[in-house]
């Protein structure tokens, strides 16, 4: 197990390097000129050159890239071109918010998706299963932004069960913090819940036809035990890889959901940096988010090893 963890951890390093290189090239080799954005199109060449020198944009690209990598390893992601605030600090302030939102969304999706998928598989072909299929298809098609609007209109504006907008930090009041996450997490998680329900259902249907399930019945095990202990664990193996992909989707969509509920996560920072071509912020955010996604993939692989003994190194 330790060796599996270590090798997977080591493979993250080159991936991060490639992600950095990819974003760096993407950002620097394109025509949009940050200096023109900051100083305006009418700036003199002398001003431009001076500004470029100040920001280090006049150095050779290779120097810039390895310079950036070197500082990034030390935790310095540069400064924003507009606010001059350190990128690492801005990200650190907001990172926890986005992550807790994504995790809350995933927890909601798992707690809804897996039971629904199992229920559908157990009554495969029944009227209830067909209804469930329709619900799942709809869940896959509903845009989360619309869901967020409807949820906030119904439960925050009309029923007043939740705050309409705003965010309470965990340190201030854990209860209010959790309450503030409910609506965004539900809006975020429904699409993922539908994906997981669908995957669980088809995996479960396949598992229930397996010979070992028949063998368990032949040994006289109670049906409950066969379904909950044996079939579910086997069906979760393919579901796990879906969970890894969905975690990345959730982080992405949370940027949009944050905006609706005025939750101060990475989304606002990122969208501002996109609109203003604030490259250090953009690049820093991409790297941080990509690292999170890679770590989630790593954790999923480890969980995969825990649940599926075949991939464990002997």
């Amino acid at each position, binding site marked *: 197990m330790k060796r599996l963890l270590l090798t997977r951890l080591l493979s993250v390093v080159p*991936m991060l390097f*490639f*992600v950095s290189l*990819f*974003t760096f090239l*993407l950002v620097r080799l*394109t025509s*949009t000129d940050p200096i023109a954005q900051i100083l305006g199109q009418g700036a003199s060449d002398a001003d431009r050159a001076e500004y470029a020198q100040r920001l280090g944009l006049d150095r050779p690209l290779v120097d810039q890239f390895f310079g950036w990598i070197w500082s990034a390893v030390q935790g310095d992601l540069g400064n924003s071109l507009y606010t001059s605030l350190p990128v690492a600090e801005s990200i650190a302030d907001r990172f926890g918010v986005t992550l807790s939102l994504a995790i809350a969304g995933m927890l909601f999706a798992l707690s809804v998706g897996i039971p629904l998928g199992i229920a559908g598989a157990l009554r*495969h*072909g*029944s009227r209830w299963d067909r209804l469930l299929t329709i619900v799942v298809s*709809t869940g*896959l*098609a*509903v*845009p989360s*932004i*619309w869901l967020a*609007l*409807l949820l906030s*209109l119904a439960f925050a*504006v009309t029923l007043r069960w939740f705050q309409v907008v705003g965010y309470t930090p965990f340190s201030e009041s854990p209860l209010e913090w959790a309450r503030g996450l409910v609506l965004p997490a539900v809006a975020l998680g429904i699409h993922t819940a539908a994906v997981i329900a669908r995957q669980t259902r088809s995996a479960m249907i*396949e598992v229930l*036809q397996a*010979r*070992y399930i*028949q*063998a*368990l*019945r*032949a*040994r*006289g*095990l*109670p049906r409950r*035990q066969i379904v909950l*202990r*044996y079939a579910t*664990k086997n069906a979760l*193996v393919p579901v796990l890889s879906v969970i890894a992909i969905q975690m990345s*989707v959730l*982080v*992405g*969509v949370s*940027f*949009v959901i944050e905006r609706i509920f005025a939750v101060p996560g990475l989304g606002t920072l*990122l*969208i501002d940096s*996109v*609109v203003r071509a604030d490259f250090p912020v*953009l690049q820093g*955010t*991409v790297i941080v*988010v*990509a690292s999170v*996604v890679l770590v989630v*993939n790593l954790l999923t692989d480890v969980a995969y090893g825990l649940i*599926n*003994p*075949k991939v464990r190194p002997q």
Partner: protein
Amino acid sequence: MAATITEDDESRAHTRLWQRLAQRPLALACIGYLLLLLAVAIAAPYIAPYDPLHPDIKSRLQGPGAAHWFGTDDLGRDTLSRLIFGARTAVLASLESVTFGVVVGVSIGLIVGYLGGWFDRIAMRVADVMQSIPAVLLALALIGVLGKGLANAMLAVGVIFSVSFLRITRAVVLAEKEQLYVDAARVLGLRTLSILLRQILPNIAAPLIVQASIALGTALLIEAMLSFLGVGIDSTQVSWGAMLETARQFQTQQPLLPIFPGLAITLSVLAFNLLGDTLRDVLLPTGATAPGNTERHVVPPQPVSTPPSSRTDTDALLQVSNLTVTAPRPGGGMAELLSDVSVHVMRGETLGLVGESGCGKSMTASAIMGLLPPAVHIAGGSIRLAGTELIGLSDDALRHVRGRRIGMVFQEPMAALSPVHTVGRQISDAVRAHTGLGRKQALARAAELLALVGVPDPHRRLQDYPHQFSGGMAQRVVIAGALACEPELLIADEPTTALDVTIQAQVLDLLMDLRQRLSMSVLLITHDLGVVADACDRVAVMYGGEVVETGSVRATFSRPRHPYTAALLAAMPRGEGIGTALATIPGRVPPAWAWPQGCRFHPRCAHATPSCRQAPSVLQDGVRCRRAGELNLAEAR
């Protein structure tokens, strides 16, 4: 020559595709909706009642009314007109991004898949990197680089899609490259490019169409999201996503604002997704959906309708009498999988049940265990275990018979064990299902059982998973699980067939040894008459869902009375005859819905007469053959 055949297959496949789509009303509804969407998008300037951008402050935030059917927004712009023009944006954006994704992804996939080597490795590394960045983030980053605007936004989305199209294409190319016909085409002198286009493109068409349909829906969702954020469209364009952004600001004043654009997005994405799902079912059949499983109707427990006609051996541990099992036949109606099957197993006796595959041996075992597949039912007969009728028992009552009184061993030991649970857990759960033992005691019992079946180092091996066992050892584990509660009857369904030849004898010896030590009865299902000769007291030969001959092994083997038994015996390899050709039985067992009229064996029988074709033979005196009295089959061997 080869090309014409492919084209014929192609066009036939297409007609079938349309026919099959036509049978699915949901798919037709989706296609209808999407065509309507396309028509609305094209005709938007002609059918929209108002200019979607024209503000009219006097009538702002109105509800649905005669002038504005769907109401107006914060600037008094007509919601219906904006929806219609929004359809234009949505269709354009989806088509742009998916077309870009298909063109780029397929071309790169074709190239790297075909060239392989470094090209392939670099391309796949880039694909990995791009997939480790969330799609929305990548789109935002690309917009940050390319600049705002719908075209750029959807180009960014197209770049993301191209990764999944690249993967599909590459996988197909790699698979097809292995295929002989590409090599054959190369030998024929076709140029590389034409090989790619002519041979591989038709093969990636199906998965590509499915993926593209779902990607269109996803593109629509992402377009809405980007427009909602204000990075997708500029102010001269209308988008459903941007309408939702307006709704966000003013929904407390006009709660109807979010309804229409949200519904439009949901319906359109739903149509793309459902169409994609249907296309996947039609174009990429996996065979995972067994037709029998969809119609799981619970059949009321069958009363014992037919009185046992044959001699009832009251001492018999297992008495199966006149068992008939039916299943729906593919074209409609019912097929008899088992007809009037009667066998019995005495206490301490081993009965061999033999016949070719498809003759109903395993079905008989499943019926006894009460584990018939969902669509298969018992239509009549009786199954008694020590005098107790099993047919009609509730599943819970049967549960106490299965595992406790009847144990079962399966053909493929690896398939009969859950791959993600330790063998200790699987055996101890079987023990605990029938006893009040705690976990620790049950594990100790499981170790005893493993020792009993000859697994070395049983305590340590309890923690192992099935894949850590060899085939023969895994079968010992399955046997241990079946013996958990020392059943009176052990049903062994081809217990040695899937094993190595060298292991077969060991496992068979083990079974025979256990039968002695635990004084069990055994129902041994096999197609290997050598096994029957070694291990069984009596034998029942099955053909076409019927018992055709029963008797003691010694008598039956030395003097077979049914031509099928004689043919099986003639096909049996015997040690001395090395070099002599084995006799084979011409033809094969027909499927259950096509049993021949008359005697079911007559088309393959060397001794069939016209009367065999007309009336079915009956089981009389242990043999189901009207010519049993006149034939001397012992000599024919």
